């Protein structure tokens, strides 16, 4: 009887102790389509012996700070953070350093000087510059690959690519980088580019629709390509362009036949499902696949290594500067339509 009681107590205690470890995942905003998709990829990629608990920071750094305080109080040894405001990362890093918790930042890269504040802080993400360069490559291929002899997509045949850009949030690292480097890369490759306008649409589909409307009004007959910082804005632009018959599904089969029906090149970045679908239907010309699947897998693997204090030498991904895990973007163009 006594032995049984001790056994039960032991089991209860032991049962409590062997509960799977929890890793908090602080997502900046679960209303963001990309992040929601990314979050579920991370959860699906997690086949490890720990649970990832998602916190929705509702696009508020204050809420994110509160969650951080809460999970640090629970002595979580590792936290995955998708920062709301990358400029606030320095405070989050110092706070985690105080308790010795490790951090994996994802999707939004803190300033390098902030990353240097603490050894146990990592960043898993893609290089915004690379996405812009790949986007530039798509555009170069589109215009024939020769900067000195543009093909038929140079509508006015002036040898210059007339472009409008749909930019993400002003001041947003990715928006600034993608906007800057896509043009830089084209120019580096000796393409002449005329940016007719840069419209700011905050990475948002609806805002992109409105912005595109104004661009059409102003430069309706001039732009030869629409460059969007992300797929969501590209899709929003395509909606407006379709309304203005830049895309015209004349046979109403739901697919744009590029040989027979009017279309205009729109390029995005991210490789969202709706973007792929749009591309398969002949609307979106191309996108740069933000390999969120690999990213999610890298995050889970890194989390497992950090949580169990395993050696980073066995990590399947390359670690740069012992802090950064860069996941490559991939060009994605459907030429078969």
């Amino acid at each position: 009887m006594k032995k049984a009681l001790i056994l039960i107590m032991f089991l209860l205690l032991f049962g409590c102790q062997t509960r799977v470890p929890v890793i908090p995942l602080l997502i900046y905003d679960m209303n963001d389509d990309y992040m929601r998709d990314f979050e579920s990829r991370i959860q699906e990629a997690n086949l490890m012996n720990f649970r990832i608990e998602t916190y929705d920071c509702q696009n508020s750094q204050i809420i994110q700070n509160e969650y951080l305080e809460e999970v640090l109080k629970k002595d979580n040894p590792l936290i995955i953070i998708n920062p709301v405001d990358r400029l606030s990362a320095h405070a989050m890093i110092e706070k985690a350093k105080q308790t010795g918790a490790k951090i994996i930042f994802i999707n939004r890269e803190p300033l390098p000087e902030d990353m240097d504040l603490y050894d146990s802080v990592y960043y898993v993400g893609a290089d915004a510059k690379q996405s812009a360069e790949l986007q530039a490559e798509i555009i170069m291929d589109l215009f024939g690959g020769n900067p000195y002899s543009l093909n038929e997509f140079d509508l006015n045949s002036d040898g210059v690519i007339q472009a409008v850009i749909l930019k993400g949030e002003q001041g947003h690292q990715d928006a600034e980088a993608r906007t800057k480097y896509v043009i830089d890369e084209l120019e580096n490759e000796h393409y002449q580019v005329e940016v007719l306008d840069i419209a700011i649409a905050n990475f948002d589909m609806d805002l992109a629709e409105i912005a595109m409307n104004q661009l059409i009004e102003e430069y309706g007959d001039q732009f030869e390509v629409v460059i969007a910082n992300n797929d969501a804005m590209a899709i929003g632009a395509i909606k407006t362009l379709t309304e203005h018959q830049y895309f015209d599904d004349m046979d109403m089969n739901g697919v744009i036949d590029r040989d027979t029906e009017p279309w205009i090149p729109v390029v995005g970045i991210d490789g969202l499902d709706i973007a792929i679908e749009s591309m398969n239907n002949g609307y979106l010309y191309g996108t740069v696949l933000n390999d969120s699947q690999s990213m999610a897998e890298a995050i889970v693997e890194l989390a497992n290594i950090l949580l169990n204090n395993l050696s980073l030498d066995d990590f399947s991904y390359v670690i740069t500067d012992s802090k950064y895990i860069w996941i490559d973007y991939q060009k994605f163009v459907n030429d078969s339509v």
Partner: protein
Amino acid sequence: MIKRINQLSIGNSIFIMTMLIVGLSMMAFSIISYRIIFSRTDDLIESTSKEINKQVILNYESYLSNVIDSSNALQKYIADLTKTNQIEELNSVFETTSSLDKNIRTVALFDNLGNVVSISSEGVLSDEIRSKDWFQNAIDLKDIHHFSSPHIEDIFDSSTKEVFTISKFIQYYKNGVQTNGVLAIDIDTEDFKTLATMTNLGTEGHIVITDEKRELIYSSESLCSDDTCESVQVMNDLIIGGALIKINHLNMYVNVNTIKYTRWNIATFINVDEITNTKFDMLLTIMIVFGATMIIIALTSAALSKRITGPLNKLENHIKKIEQGDFDSMITLSGQYEVVLLSQAFNSMSEQIRELMNRVMKEQREKRKTQFIALQNQINPHFLYNTLDSIVWLSENKRNADVEKAIIALSKFFRMSISGEDTLVNLRDEIEHVSNYLLIQQIRYHNSFHFDFEIQEEALDCKVLKFSLQPLVENAITHGLLPEESYCHISIRGYLKDNYVYLEVQNEGYGISSDRIDEIQKIFKGAIQSTSIGLRNIYQRLTLYYGKNADMFIESELDEYTKVTIKMPIDRGEIK
């Protein structure tokens, strides 16, 4: 320990147990309610403070986001207008911007060497723009807006206005060529400071802002003027989050957060002294309630235990009384029902004991009476023999008249002797009895003695022990009559004194020595065995009947007299 518990009185046990149970449960209750109330209060402080902190930050963020929006809009204008070389146009855009927003004092675009490209207002420009922190920071870290600490506006040489500068690396076109530059916007600090006073943070509540290096940028409290001030220390310890702290003996709830768009940290110090004091008051109240309850419980349990033990103590005293032989008093207890029942049972028990004792006493008395009668009967044969001897003698001398007198006296004497079993008779009857006896004895001793009675009138109706006088007279005759002398006088006296009846029989004669008196007294007290029964018999009967209240003593003077006195309590015949 257990032994000690067992030795406790009922009252103490009740008291201690009650205090223990009530004390422990009250303690548990107090601690639980204290903790609930405290955690609620703490939660309230925390949530309220966080709300206020959030509000303050939102104020700052919306204020700063306006500035950043302006900057972003300006960047677009700069790119557009420099491309087409419309520098004049750009100047007017800058002017408009600074005039539309009263917070914006100056907007300026510099090339990467610090030379002005376009500026919103006229003035003598500083020639060291390039060395300014805000300029360098923008060049060093290109993709973010930089927020400087408040400083005297340094774009112009002569300005006295305090501003902070927002600077951003930008790319613009110089003669159609893309080139690097810095956009600087000087913001008046006045509104920024007013924002801090907009929220009521309580007495000495304040706002502190530090930069990413955790150096002080701004404090709404004049006491906190550099990085070493307590508030900044607290901020740097916390980094992010809330805590209850004490600054200048005031309870403050501090919340440290970051301000979006900037790399700044902001802390709100909210005075929560009042709420904390409420907490203290609550603690005090709980303690008072606890104390009062304990006192009430102590009094109640003391009263209760007294209600039980009080009657029990009375019962104990009563039992002690019974131990000493007092079975007559009854005990009436009020109080606890069980105790009352106990006292009733006890009463009926002591009543039964008393009845039993009465019965035993009665039996004892009966036994004594039988013994008494037996002693009484011892007298008669002795006397009868002597008297009959005298009558024989009278008859031999043919004194018929004397024989007749003697026989009448004898018959009277015996009639009285055999009349009833009363122990007591009136002195009058005893006197008559003795007279008869003396008559008989006078005949027997041929009138060789005289006698007289001196009896107080009041004494006549007193009850005296039956046959108590006669043996004394008999003794006087036996020992008083001297063979040589033909004449002897016997006096019989009876009187009342000090609640006692005294009967004296005195005869003239040799008297006896005091040694002899002692011996005789020892004899009748039974200390020395003797065949003489007269006096001893009386003494035994007296003490048997009256106890120590009665006595007998002998006085004598040699050659004069011998006097035997008995003394017994006055009894006027009312006895049972």
